[in-house]
């Protein structure tokens, strides 16, 4: 299935959980926040959340800024 990940199209396996995607991206040890279709998915829900076709996933972190 196709999803949008940080603005880019990405092919993912059907039924993949959000926590599995985070592992796949090597981001599991990172401090991040995730929004899907403009709704925050809290860290406590990552393992349960099943990604659906056409989900718009945004993964953000903190960078330098003033």
């Amino acid at each position, binding site marked *: 299935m196709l999803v949008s990940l940080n603005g880019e199209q990405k092919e993912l396996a059907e039924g993949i959980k959000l926590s599995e995607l985070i592992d796949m991206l090597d981001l599991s*040890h*990172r401090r991040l*926040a995730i929004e899907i279709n403009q709704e925050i998915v809290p860290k406590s829900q990552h393992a349960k959340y099943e990604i659906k076709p056409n989900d718009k996933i*945004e993964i953000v972190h*903190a960078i330098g*800024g003033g």
Partner: protein
Amino acid sequence: MTNTTDQLIIADKAYNSRLLTGSGKYKDLDETRAATEASGAEIVTVAIRRTNIGQNPDEPNLLDALPPEKYTILPNTAGCYTTEDAVRTCRLARELLDGHDLVKLEVLGDEKTLFPDITATLEAAEILVKDNFKVMVYTNDDPIIARRLEEIGCVAVMPLAAPIGSGLGIRNPYNILTIVENANVPILVDAGVGTASDAAIAMELGCDGILMNTAIAAAQNPVLMASAMKKAVEAGREAFLAGRMPRKRFASASSPIDGTFF
């Protein structure tokens, strides 16, 4: 007056430093860490952006250089031009920082000036305060708007002294003074400071603190400038508390006239 008796209180938390710093525009994270350390800042702003997907997973992380256990991290809404984007950014920041609810709200109006969009700023402030955020808000140097933002419930109001990143100094000291005199929440100059004397002037006007980034990061020697800014903010604060002498048009001798032998 020592620091322990003259603390800056923001949203019920006490800080010894009245200098807040940004973490942008540094050469690398080592410089960010060293300059932040030298500035003595306890509150440091960060931006929220997309994670780089598929890049080096061991790439150093800003929050390793500026650990939230040591610094109060102040996520900003830099780059937001709409109420919606600013509110969304704050909600992501709160999730990122495990429920930490202190944010710096800025809704920009135009890329050339980076002046705030005031109507959108007021709207976003209302939404965020209702959503239990503690909002430190970037605004222009308009005393009426500053008061309005305080009434909405912002925990600090942060007027610009000059455009962001311009280094032009305190362009309208009388407006800053009026904002300070009207306020019941901390007033921090945010943006426009170029060098140490600008920081001292803002503090002598009675500002509660200063937030700066480019003045330090774009100096030839950022770590040395961070140290200069720390001293300037402290000096300006002490001068404000001490109360300056009145200005006089003509001279007044410092040595007595009595007892002269010539």
